[in-house]
């Protein structure tokens, strides 16, 4: 059975509001939102560390906007 561990998260009021908003819009629990954020961050970090670049592309537009990750 997968072992899960508990962590306490200290967030500002604004951060909590952002979490609440994502939770409501995505119909996900706050835990699921944090889990998705972690997966995405790890994936982005891995791809960037392997020399890839991340862009956003608007539909119907030719230019792409590069997302800089520090």
């Amino acid at each position, binding site marked *: 059975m997968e072992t899960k561990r508990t962590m306490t998260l200290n967030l500002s009021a604004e951060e909590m509001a952002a979490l609440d908003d994502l939770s409501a*819009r*995505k119909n*996900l629990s706050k835990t699921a939102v944090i*889990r*998705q954020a972690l*997966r*995405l961050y*790890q*994936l982005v970090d891995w791809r960037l560390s392997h020399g890839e670049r991340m862009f956003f592309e608007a539909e119907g537009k030719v230019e792409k906007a590069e997302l800089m990750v520090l």
Partner: protein
Amino acid sequence: MQVEPPELVMAVLDDSAGAEVLIAAEEEWGPERISAAKRHLGTNSFPEHFYFNWARKIGQLKLEAYRCTSLHWDGSCQGLMMLSLVGHVAQFGPDKGKDLVYVEFLEAAPWNVKELNPLPRFCHIGTRLLEAAVLISKDEGFEGRVGLESLMQSEGFYRQNGMQEIDPSRATRELRYFEMTKDRAEKFLEEVRD
């Protein structure tokens, strides 16, 4: 289900298959895939997924964003599926924009593909893996939503399982996109359990 003699067998589903499973499967499947490709060269049955190589995907398993599901019987892998759990959202209906489980790759072992073999060993491998994707989606809180882009040879399978589709000419994708909505997922689970 075993095709000959026809009987239901109890396969084992591993919803977190590791690198050793992918490597072992590729060792068995790779030569069979090449052999099938040679037999069907120049025909409509030439396997579009000929280039698949599961051993090359083991790097993805280091990331929480991916999960591999495998179906085994009698110690041999009969089907594999690589899922992406992040970065893909529903395109249809009231759940548009909500997270879904995305099937990056799905393959039944070459000896189970009826287009490649006159007498496959097992059938319904794809259905069982698709069912697993829906259950994982529910477990993740995505309410059963599943999305994927299909090779042309597999479009009929996803269509007959009630997935909605987007014509590639209307999208930026090269392959036709299929999606299992939340409502369809519930019906699908009832159908496959009957």
